[in-house]
């Protein structure tokens, strides 16, 4: 938000307002403090001088409003706020002329002027506030890389990032942004990913590591092999998401635009009735017309219409500073109400870096690991990789590997058949095995129908998981964990973290079903969040009321499928997002209630003639300014 500069248009407008305000103050002071302008020209035309002077200020400050009103009427836009302001002020002028011409005490010129003046102040302030708020979001847009230095025919050429193809090599100098996703071919450096993830600690990278676009290279030059074209790269995906963030409108926004649609015509209609009926009955036309005009001053719904999206926008901007991308204000609104949190276990609550912690029997370690590694060598599953890592040597080749969903892997080849998987797989193949009693994932290994032994693999729980789950439980949320692990492992993790519910032994496809069951069982007003790492759970992310993907950097499937993306792989983003959502909704409610209350109060008071137009315009502009200031407070 800092460092926002006014546009030229805004600066010119500000000067105009200040000059007119000064002129108005002088006029007003002379009018009230001394005998007034009327005294300068004795006789019954004394009001003419005051009229002329005020009219000059009026035109200086309001010519554009008048012009827009005329133009919009020509377009058939009757209930346009410019038009309403013109009616109110011109009406006030007309009344003052009427009073002057009929020899009554002169008043009303100052009011007409002031109304328009303060209307312009309000408008200016709105423009300033929205400009400032927009700027804070576009700070995020700074991650857009301008160019890429690509190596072509041995020479370095600077091109637009979108012209670089996959497989080409680019050079990134220190201080430059990484323009495209890729892997480091040469060099080592530190990367600043603050703009992407909110993480302020630089990350050290070396040859072979993946780099994501949008990060800033800090220490030394890197040569990077491009893995994704620009439109497909992380930075393009994030920018796309941020730019379209406001497309999904919240209920509060829809309510307010709908309200505005009826509010203005209704107030105008009441104003008309107020002028005509009591006027005709009492014969005091000028009193009642004046009251009706005060109505028109408060008829513009702009304060409301603008402050609600502004609040949401500020909330989304605040979240993005913490590396949390929210895809629309409706998600922020719903997330505030979210009370059922479903977590994927692996990679979300746990680190997902599995390690073989035991081999049963210990004496057969070498052989069991070799067999298991040979069967699992092509799998990308974290468990499989931990087995290959534990073996540490080149596994045997020559096997045809078949994935048995939810059970394990069968490897067949010249060396025979290796079965590697859970107890279900052993039972299904009719293999006599010894059930291993351990907390952790147990992988049984059999060769040619003979049970060889088992591996116990454990996953580490993330350090912040318990804190986050505890916090959510304290808020009265239900926390559920879904996992493919057996009940033993699942229950042990669930107990450690304090989850309120756990569903274990699920096949990948079962997760959608479980979430659907939870969705069907939830009450009205409940909102279900699914939190996953985006690997394999895109369908669940989409199915949930709010899909939250963790560690969004580098996983575009997750960015696309989810509604909220935690760019940093840290669960603490959830309470942070919750706090921001809560604050946003509180401000939205305050603004709606406060602005409506003040408007109706002014309407009632002016109907009874307790207030005058001064109060009405201060009320109206004041509400707008306060609502906007309140909205801008939303910077967690």
């Amino acid at each position: 938000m800092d460092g926002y500069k006014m546009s030229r248009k805004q600066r010119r407008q500000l000067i105009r307002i200040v000059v007119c305000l000064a002129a108005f103050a002088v006029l007003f002071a002379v009018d009230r403090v001394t005998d007034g302008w009327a005294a300068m020209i004795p006789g019954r035309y004394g009001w003419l001088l005051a009229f002329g002077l005020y009219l000059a200020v009026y035109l200086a400050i309001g010519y554009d409003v008048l012009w827009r009103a005329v133009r919009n009427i020509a377009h058939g836009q009757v209930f346009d706020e410019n038009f309403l302001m013109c009616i109110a002020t011109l009406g006030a002028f007309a009344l003052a002329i009427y009073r002057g011409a009929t020899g009554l005490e002169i008043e009303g010129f100052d009011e007409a002027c002031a109304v328009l003046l303060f209307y312009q102040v309000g408008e200016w302030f709105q423009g300033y506030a929205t400009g400032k708020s927009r700027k804070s979001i576009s700070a995020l847009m700074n991650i857009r890389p301008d160019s890429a230095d690509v190596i072509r025919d041995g020479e370095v050429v600077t091109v637009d990032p979108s012209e670089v193809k996959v497989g080409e090599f680019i050079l990134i100098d220190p201080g430059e942004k990484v323009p495209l996703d890729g892997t480091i071919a040469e060099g080592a450096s530190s990367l600043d990913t603050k703009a992407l993830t909110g993480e302020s600690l630089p990350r050290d990278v070396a040859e072979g590591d993946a780099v994501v676009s949008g990060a800033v290279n800090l220490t030394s030059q890197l040569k990077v092999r491009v893995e994704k074209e620009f439109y497909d790269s992380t930075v393009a995906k994030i920018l796309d998401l941020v730019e379209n963030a406001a497309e999904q409108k919240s209920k509060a926004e829809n309510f307010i635009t709908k309200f505005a649609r009826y509010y203005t015509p209704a107030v105008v209609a009441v104003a008309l009735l107020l002028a005509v009926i009591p006027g005709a009955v009492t014969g005091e036309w000028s009193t009642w017309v004046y009251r009706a005009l005060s109505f028109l001053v408060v008829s513009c719904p702009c304060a409301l219409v603008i402050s609600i999206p502004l609040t949401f926008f500020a909330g989304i901007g605040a979240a993005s500073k913490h590396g949390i991308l929210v895809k629309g204000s409706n998600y922020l609104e719903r997330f505030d109400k979210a009370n059922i949190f479903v977590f994927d276990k692996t990679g979300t609550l746990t680190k997902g870096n599995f390690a073989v912690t035991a081999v049963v029997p210990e004496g057969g370690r070498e052989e069991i690991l070799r067999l298991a590694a040979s069967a699992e060598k092509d799998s990308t599953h974290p468990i499989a990789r931990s087995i290959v890592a534990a073996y540490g040597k080149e596994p045997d080749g020559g096997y045809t590997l078949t994935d048995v969903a939810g059970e394990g892997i069968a490897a067949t080849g010249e060396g025979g058949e290796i079965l590697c998987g859970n107890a279900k797989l052993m039972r299904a193949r009719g293999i006599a095995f010894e059930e291993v009693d351990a907390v952790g994932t147990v992988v049984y290994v059999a060769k040619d129908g003979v049970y060889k032994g088992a591996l116990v693999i454990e996953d580490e729980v993330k350090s912040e998981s318990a804190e986050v789950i505890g916090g959510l439980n304290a808020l009265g949320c239900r926390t559920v964990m879904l996992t493919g692990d057996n009940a033993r492992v699942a229950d042990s993790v669930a107990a450690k973290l304090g989850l309120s519910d756990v569903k274990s032994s699920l096949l990948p496809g079962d997760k959608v079903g479980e979430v659907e069951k939870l969705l069907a069982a939830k009450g009205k007003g409940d909102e279900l969040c699914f939190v996953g790492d985006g690997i394999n759970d895109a369908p669940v992310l989409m199915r949930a009321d709010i899909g939250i993907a963790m560690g969004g950097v580098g996983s575009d499937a997750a960015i696309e499928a989810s509604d909220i993306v935690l760019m940093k792989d840290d669960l603490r983003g959830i309470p942070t997002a919750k706090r921001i959502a809560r604050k946003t909704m509180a401000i939205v409610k305050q603004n709606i209630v406060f602005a409506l209350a003040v408007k109706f109060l002014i309407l009632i008071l002016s109907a009874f003639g307790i207030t005058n137009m001064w109060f009405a315009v201060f009320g109206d502009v004041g509400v707008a300014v306060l609502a906007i200031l309140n909205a801008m407070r939303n910077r967690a």
Partner: protein
Amino acid sequence: MKKVFKLQDLDCANCAAKMERHVAKLDGVNSVSISFMTQRMAIDADESRFDEIMDEVVKVCRKVEPDCRIVR
């Protein structure tokens, strides 16, 4: 077909809402969302007549808010 357009000089939130309402009524427009904050219009309209529909959209928007320009 869905497309996003930038709106220049969209100065008033109520006008954005009005424009959205008017555009939504046009024949061939499936859905439209105008964001005052990001100054963008996302429109989903009949692909075969897209340009034709966009001409209408521009006309309608000019009627509501003559200062605002749709960048095509």
